[in-house]
């Protein structure tokens, strides 16, 4: 479903250019759960941004669902991102002045969904992550764990195939982390393809597949 062939990302140009990702190749089947591990600054976020079509590879081929997407224009990439990809960030990245419900509904409005449908759907998603009672609160009024649950609900807004979680538990205490990981595992159980960037060796060891990265290269691709 996802295929990377010699994908590289170089920041800057020429001699001063920095190779954040240096020729990465791998394939991931639909529904796989992939843990991405590696030291800080090794290129994990860069990899996820390319996977999520936020960033374009400097070189190489990226095929999503059998289609070359690395070289698409901004409009098409945005559209694909909207319907196929759900991002979960370490720092939540919720809009602070919007309620939880509005945050979850926002991707749907970019997809052109009607107001009523959006409300119903967003409420359903918040219920699913256990935040039914707090749907009208703003992110500032929620705890870290709750915020991350809102952002998971938001990632699911347009029923994407792929969930990209970049250190989603990095800012959370252990109890909230466990809850969030539980939710992400649930999504995997429902058939979503999941990329999870993590530092936690425990989580990594339980994943069905682990990509170890160092200095922008895959040093180990382990399947269980």
């Amino acid at each position: 479903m996802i295929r990377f062939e010699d994908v590289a990302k170089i920041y800057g140009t020429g001699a001063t250019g920095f190779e954040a990702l240096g020729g990465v190749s791998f394939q991931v089947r639909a529904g796989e759960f992939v843990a991405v591990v590696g030291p800080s600054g090794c290129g994990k976020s860069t990899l996820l941004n390319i996977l999520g079509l936020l960033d374009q590879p400097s070189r190489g081929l990226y095929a999503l669902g059998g289609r070359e997407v690395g070289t698409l224009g901004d409009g098409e990439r945005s559209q694909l991102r909207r319907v196929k990809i759900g991002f979960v960030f370490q720092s939540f990245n919720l809009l602070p002045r919007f309620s939880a419900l509005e945050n979850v509904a926002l991707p749907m409005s970019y997809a052109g969904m009607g107001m009523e449908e959006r409300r119903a759907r967003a409420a359903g998603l918040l219920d699913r992550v256990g935040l039914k009672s707090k749907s009208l609160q703003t992110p500032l009024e929620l705890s870290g764990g709750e915020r991350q649950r809102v952002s998971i609900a938001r990632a699911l807004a347009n029923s994407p195939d792929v969930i990209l979680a970049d250190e989603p538990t990095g800012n959370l205490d252990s109890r909230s982390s466990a809850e969030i990981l539980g939710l992400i595992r649930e999504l995997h159980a429902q058939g979503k393809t999941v990329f999870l960037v993590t530092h936690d060796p425990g989580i990594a060891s339980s994943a069905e597949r682990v990509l170890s990265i160092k200095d922008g290269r895959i040093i180990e691709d382990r399947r269980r």
Partner: protein
Amino acid sequence: MRLWELIRTGLFEIYAHKTRSFLSFLSISIGVAAMLYTFSQVNGMFVQFNKALDLVGHGRLEIERKEDYRSRGLSPGLTYQDALALRRLMPELHMVSPVAQQWSQRFRYGGFSSEEPVLYGVTPEWAKRDWVYTLRGRFINDDDVLFAKRVCVMRMPGGWDEKPWWAVFWEDSKYDDFAAHNDLLDRQITLGDNLFTVVGVIKEPPRDKDPRWFSREWGSPIYIPISTYQKIMRLSNRGGKPDEVREINIDVGRGELVPAYQRRIKAVLLERHRGEEDFKIIDFRDRFQNILKNQRETARQVMAVGIVAILAGGIGIMNVTLATIYSRIKEIGIRRAIGARRRDILLQFLLEAMTLGFFGGIAGIALGYGGIWYLGRRSAETLAALELWHFAATLAIAVGTGFIFSVIPAYQASRLDPVEALRYE
């Protein structure tokens, strides 16, 4: 993304940055108010023009002496006889009204005395001219002229219906004050050395309701039969030309007839003046246009102020848009990550600015309309000559300003790299 939601986000942002928004809002509204004022002025001018034409008639001509004319000694000048000749040759004319006015005579009544009143020699036809007065008694009649009777009609100032703020220093003269507080109808007054009977008193409309913005005779006139006027002048032996008149007012009826009559009158007068063209025949419509020229100039200046204010407002909007964009780079990244296209971002910021312009426009219309209403309330010149499309146009200008001045910042926002925007703190 639906329009309404974009506007709602815009309102959100406007509210979140109150001071900033308020400033651009303010200048936009001042600009819009000035625009609106200009519109009302320009339109008001047309209204005034037509009103004045209706009052004086569309076929009005005025014959005047040419001020800078060097006589060759052939012409007797513009005289009462000229008026009589025109009347005789063109009996169909609605009005031929000669007015003589060369010198003043001291007014005396009881113990009161004044040099102020100005003496006019007229015929009954004077009453056909812009009649806006209320009359007590009667006006000068044919008998008065025929027998050169010592009768007069006094004209009283109308005062103010509602005194405007700018007229606080406008003091009624001593004579006006006297005339206003002494009923002189049927009394005998002295003008110079001559006793006159006041047979009529005409009262002007209140100054602020007076539609005759085009020709106001200042001073406080007293009207006497033109024949009496000439007789006294001859007797007084003070020089001057007793036969001469200041002007002859003519009403030919319809506007289409004006050019033809202009030619005929000119021919008649040239012959009577032995070829000397020491007079001019003025079409009142030209005179109005001339007076309106000044107003048009004022309107143009107000318009310039309005444009400057709108520009300032536009720059304010640009500033607001730029500032919101800088404070919301992260938000742009987030929106992009959840699927917003570049044009969604572009549209969002454009609409926010246009919303700002829109509400600035609404406030400006309220401000402008209030001001124009306030001014218009206190003058006869209906300033509030505003039509619906004026509001629509000013609003469009305000929204358009928001649009134009936010295009560049909004475009920049839409070109931000999503990854960098997300990383931005």
